[in-house]
């Protein structure tokens, strides 16, 4: 059995891993995991990843979670172009610098609109307006910092070439866009970066990765999203309670 990637393409980090593997022609078996059907908390999956999270990688007996770690592993193990995770000391440091900041300021924040508008209502939870506004403000601050500290006058987030940092950022920023919050509007610099990046990755590949998430609003409107499995309720309630 070759490389297996356990992914739910509704999830931002899963899409980053998917796009990276496809773009670099890395052969893998896609193991779709549907979070809201309770598959993460199933006994089968917890044997794959005791942290019960996606994305997860299985390479023979070696199991790895955390999208950052997976992307670095794939960059190093397979013949991928150097620009993704350059061997140059300072260039590589810039990527880790971005990923550290991303973990605190992007991850968790940009997923909130999806929770607010699509997921929480599925289990009858409505977020107070105060929290929605707080999240908007947090996204605004993060986007400003993304432009001022990372992108600046460069083509991409850590320099003149596409890196793992750009991929992680892009899929997080797409999440609110998929539920109708176009955060690129009024931000021409970021919009230009997105265009450059998607041109590099290929629009077909981006569309392929985002098939699920881009249709979600339509499905929600037509009440076509299945109710989450009861086993997932605790996880969903916990996640919602963490929204500041």
């Amino acid at each position, binding site marked *: 059995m070759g490389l297996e990637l356990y992914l739910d393409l509704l999830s931002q980090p899963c899409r980053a891993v998917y796009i990276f593997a496809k773009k670099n022609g890395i052969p893998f078996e896609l193991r779709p995991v549907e979070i809201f059907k309770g598959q993460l908390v199933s006994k089968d999956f917890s044997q794959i990843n*005791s*942290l019960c999270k996606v994305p997860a990688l299985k390479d023979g007996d*070696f199991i*790895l*979670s*955390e*999208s*950052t*770690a997976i992307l*670095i*592993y794939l960059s*190093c*193990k397979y013949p991928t172009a150097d620009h993704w995770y350059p061997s140059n*000391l*300072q260039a*590589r*440091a*810039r*990527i*880790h*610098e971005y*990923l*550290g*900041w991303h*973990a*605190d300021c992007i*991850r*968790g924040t940009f997923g909130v609109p999806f929770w607010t508008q699509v997921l929480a209502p599925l289990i009858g939870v409505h977020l107070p307006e105060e929290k929605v506004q*707080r999240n908007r403000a947090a996204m605004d601050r993060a986007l400003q*910092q993304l432009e*001022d*500290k990372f992108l600046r006058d460069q083509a991409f987030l850590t320099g003149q070439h596409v890196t793992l940092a750009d991929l992680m950022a892009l899929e997080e920023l797409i999440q609110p866009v998929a539920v109708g919050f176009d955060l690129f509007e009024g931000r021409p610099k970021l919009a230009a970066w997105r265009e450059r990046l998607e041109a590099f990755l290929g629009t077909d590949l981006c569309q392929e990765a985002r098939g699920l998430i881009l249709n979600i609003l339509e499905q929600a409107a037509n009440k076509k999203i299945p109710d989450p499995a009861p086993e997932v309720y605790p996880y969903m309630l916990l996640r919602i*309670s963490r929204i*500041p």
Partner: protein
Amino acid sequence: MGLELYLDLLSASCRAVYIFVKKNSIPFDFQFVDLLKGHHHSKEYIEINPLKKLPSLKDGRFILSESVAILFYLCRKYSTPSHWYPPDLHTRARVDEFMAWQHTAIQLPMSRILWIKMLIPRITGEEVPAEKTEQMLTEVRTNMQLFEEKFLQDKMFITGDHISLADLVALVEMMQPMGGNYNVFLNSSRLAEWRMRVELAIGSGLFWEAHDRLMKLAEWDCSTLDPMVKEKICELLQKFR
């Protein structure tokens, strides 16, 4: 001007960097940026890091923030012993995996305990609602358990027989609640033993030197707190309501 490190040892991320450079005898200039006095908001420091966060590294004209990035940079630049960040693909991936997981699973909740148990009550005179406190403590207990079962298991250290950056980062973060007299190691002898092992591998002298400011936090006269910092803390309390 050689390597400069902008630090306040109250911060776990700063302690990781400090311990690492001292342990590996990397020469550097300690630039103290006093968090309690709000010096991270000063004009001088904003030039170093406009995000106003610690730690920062300045190596000639190269400025770098984020402790994990700094640790990886120092490892490579100063060719520190390979056990800190092992070159083997799988072992290194484990370190990367832990470093990614710890941001939300360990660093954030551990730092929150200190805020909830000590800093917020001390500064604002108000307690954080018990429900929120309990929620935070439950999260910490759950994540400590995950840490033990998934990352440490029955090994001496996270990657096996030797200390790595992962152990260093894990431990300094788990020490944060000690500033508020809360000891997260009480429930598991395996974790307590690991804690001791990491301390000894670092050297108890260096370890406790790095934690001195944190351990003395209870003695801090908070009337000297910078008003801007105090305002931010009152804002923080809002989020817990």
